[in-house]
């Protein structure tokens, strides 16, 4: 296991209260594994991504759990250790490529400086590597010395990918890498990521609300709701033969991947308010299969068919088939 | 209401208001607190602070305490007079410029810019030197030179507000454009202008003190800057002539600056609440 996440819990301080944004999340990632994190906005998938790099906003903290990267716990590591792990072991493609780059620095300089921060090589070697990765993501290396505002949206996204890969990281987190792009560019970026993952032996975590993108790029998938993982397992088995009512509802609200576009169903109700979470199962208020027990008792994570884990009192009974 | 509460309970607001109320009491009740003409000699010159003259006397035997008390009057007149003139000119020109737009706006913007960049203190000194230094005239001169920042802010506010639904609704309903502008648009956008006005009050007080310090003040009234002017030439023999009026000026500037900053913060909170 190159990455092990154990009981990860993240809290945010809002006023005097602490809200739990990520609750007891567990998963692991082997070399060249790819895992997709999906869910509605506010479900904690991006926060999980940032927690993996120990990079939370000022009012956030990891209140419990471990994030082992190659055996080193980034939660308890010293500042210097954390800094040396970032980008070298685990790097990230940021959600908003439009604003993720420093507007007053040439893109090439930003990439080269990031590399020099982690490796003791000459500047010209660093420039060579930056050129190599620019060509790899499909940008002419002659554009290295341009500023972000001279790039189109799709090119900025590619530049951000080149920046993320420059130190040959072992783990890559891609946080909504396609949201700001048009449909054509979205496909290209996802395909680029799939190619790069294979070529560079990357372990990848793809965070997205776009289930079809995740289905295409990832072998495993984790469905998050209210800060918890509700169902996790092989992509196909989670998406098509799901066991959790939420997964079922979420997949049902998306255009189908394999069948012609049929009726889409909306999930009733709205995403949970972190400040006011239900006492039992967090999905209970919106669940069509809810029973009395769901109101009072939090369902434990249990193993179900196809090597999946599922957090529902009735996981074994609810064998959905899309 | 919530905004008002945030503003009132702010520590900066409280300190600012306390200082201002003391100075306002001085200004209003000066004849009671310190009877007689403050510019009239009341004893031997250059007396250290003592029982009879708690702040000492200046080089002409005038009581510094009396001049401080009476000086608050002229400072208040400048604060409210000059900032008030600047507020009126700035709001009217800025609002019209933003609302009418087109060539008028272009010309007005150029004028704001010219005023903005001209060395203001020099301009004021030049005008006071030529046209004389009666209080009324100086208040008008200062007010008429510091308004462009108000106009700039008002213009920007009107530009963002005029596309709002309620303004357009009023226009569709057939309201007169001018009355829509000054009834609906200006009152909703005036917040930042008022906070700037508070800062301009400090600026006006400072300008008056500087003019008096340079010997350009109205010769017939007591002013804090005038004590400092006397203090400058007696700095080694009468340091109290420098220290005391300086502290009073600084306190008044502090009060207006604190209030202005508090107002700004309150308005930002308002923006956050809307978003």
């Amino acid at each position: 296991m190159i990455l092990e996440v154990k009981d990860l819990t993240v809290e945010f301080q809002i006023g005097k209260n602490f809200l739990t944004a990520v609750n007891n999340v567990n998963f692991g990632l082997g070399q060249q594994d790819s895992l997709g994190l999906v869910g509605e906005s506010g479900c904690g998938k991006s926060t999980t991504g940032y927690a993996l790099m120990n990079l939370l906003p000022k009012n956030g903290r990891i209140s419990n759990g471990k994030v082992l990267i190659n055996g080193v716990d980034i939660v308890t590591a010293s500042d210097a250790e954390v800094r040396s792990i970032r980008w070298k072991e685990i790097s990230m493609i940021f959600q908003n490529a439009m604003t993720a780059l420093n507007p007053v620095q040439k893109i090439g300089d930003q990439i080269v400086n990031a590399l020099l921060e982690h490796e003791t090589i000459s500047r010209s070697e660093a420039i060579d590597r930056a050129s190599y990765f620019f060509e790899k993501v499909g940008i002419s290396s002659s554009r290295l010395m341009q500023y972000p505002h001279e790039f189109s949206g799709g090119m900025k996204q590619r530049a951000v990918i080149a920046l993320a890969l420059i130190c040959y990281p072992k783990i890559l987190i891609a946080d909504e890498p396609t949201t700001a792009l048009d449909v054509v560019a979205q496909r290209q970026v996802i395909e680029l990521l799939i190619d790069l993952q294979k070529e560079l032996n990357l372990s990848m975590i793809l965070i997205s609300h776009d289930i079809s993108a995740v289905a295409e790029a990832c072998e495993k998938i984790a469905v998050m709701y209210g800060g918890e993982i509700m169902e996790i397992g092989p992509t196909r088995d989670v998406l098509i033969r799901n066991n959790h009512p939420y997964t079922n509802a979420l997949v049902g609200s998306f255009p189908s991947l394999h069948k012609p576009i049929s009726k889409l169903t909306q999930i009733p109700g709205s995403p949970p308010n972190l400040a006011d979470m239900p006492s039992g199962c967090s999905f209970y208020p919106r669940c069509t299969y809810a029973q009395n027990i769901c109101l009072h008792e939090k369902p434990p994570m249990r193993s179900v068919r196809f090597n999946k884990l599922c957090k529902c009192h009735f996981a074994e009974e609810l064998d959905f088939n899309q | 209401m919530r905004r008002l509460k945030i503003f009132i309970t702010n520590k900066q607001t409280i300190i600012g208001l306390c200082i201002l109320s003391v100075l306002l009491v001085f200004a209003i009740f000066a004849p009671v607190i310190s009877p007689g003409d403050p510019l009239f000699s009341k004893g031997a010159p250059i007396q250290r602070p003592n029982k009879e003259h708690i702040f000492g006397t200046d080089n002409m035997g005038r009581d510094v305490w009396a001049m401080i008390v009476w000086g608050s009057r002229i400072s208040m007149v400048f604060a409210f007079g000059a900032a008030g003139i600047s507020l009126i000119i700035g709001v009217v020109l800025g609002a019209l410029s933003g609302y009418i737009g087109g060539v008028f706006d272009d010309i007005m913007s150029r004028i704001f810019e010219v005023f903005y960049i001209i060395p203001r203190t020099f301009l004021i000194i030049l005008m006071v030197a030529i046209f004389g230094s009666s209080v009324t005239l100086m208040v008008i001169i200062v007010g008429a030179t510091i308004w462009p920042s108000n106009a700039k802010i008002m213009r920007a506010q009107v530009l963002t507000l005029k596309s709002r639904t309620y303004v357009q609704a009023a226009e569709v309903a057939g309201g007169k454009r001018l009355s829509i502008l000054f009834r609906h648009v200006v009152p909703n956008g005036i917040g930042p202008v008022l906070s700037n006005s508070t800062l301009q009050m400090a600026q006006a007080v400072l300008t008056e003190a500087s003019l008096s310090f340079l010997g350009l003040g109205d010769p017939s009234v007591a002013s804090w800057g005038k004590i400092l002017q006397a203090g400058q030439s007696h700095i080694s023999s009468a340091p109290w002539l420098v220290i005391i009026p300086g502290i009073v000026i600084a306190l008044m500037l502090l009060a207006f600056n604190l209030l202005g900053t508090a107002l700004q913060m309150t308005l930002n909170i308002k923006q956050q609440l809307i978003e």
Partner: protein
Amino acid sequence: MDFAKYIARRVLQMIPVIIAVTIFNFLIINFAPGDPVTVLAGENATQEYMDELREAYGLNEPILVRLKLYMQKLLKGDLGVSYTYRQPVANIIKEKMKVTLMLVLLSEIATIVVGTALGALAARHEGKTLDNIISNVSMMLYCMPVYWLGMLLILFFAVKLQWLPSSGMYSFGSQKYSKSVDLIRHLILPSLTLFLVRLPTYIKLTRSTVVEVAQEDYINSARAIGYSEKDVYKKHALPNALLPTVTVAGMSLSTVFSGALLTETVFSWPGMGRMIFDGVASRDYPIIMGGFLVTTILVVVGSLITDLIYMYLDPRVVHS
């Protein structure tokens, strides 16, 4: 190409300012209370000199002819003759300007560097003790009139400790120090005054922009890349936060000169400010008007230079 066009546009924008000031000066000569000739020549001028001026400025001609004559004189660099110095104003200003720039440039550069650094430091420790100390001291300085601050420094360093001279540019008769050391000793207090008085402007500005910039996505990117917190601020937040500082530095040149006027008055520093002050005291209008015009031109040119610096620092300007 874009670059040249941009500069040309900025230069064109500056012209109205200079025209406004010249017309303003012209109006003062012509509409100030009393005979225009006394404005130009002073109360005690001889009849011949007054006649000469009347001729030169065309004071008997219609107003537009007068304006033309006045403009022609200005374009030739003729700012009139001071009747207290009995010299052409242009020559006096040339001398005084050097003396003022010596004082202003030194202290302003120092205040920009130190103020920016302190502001960034306060922003990095936002809401903590260090931030509170810096912000409160800055507020206190902000409320002190420049001449009062100058007098306090005189009181402490010159009167009480007797370390430094309180006024002038050189000491008379004393051979204790070499000429340049003597000059530096005289420069310290007035420079320190201007430095302290301008400090809060840059502290406040830098603090608020750095706090704002620190919330940008690319700052978080820099953290993710593994830069130390110090580098995140120094290499990423500060360069972006500096942009408004540059603008303010340019826009506030006129404030700097006003500060210089008062400081020079307090310290009897024989520069432009002191010259204008003396001009006001003796009602030497050619001096005041010349000083006003030249200062305005300096401010305008200064803000143009600032624009160029801004363009160098922010690659986005020319494009937008």
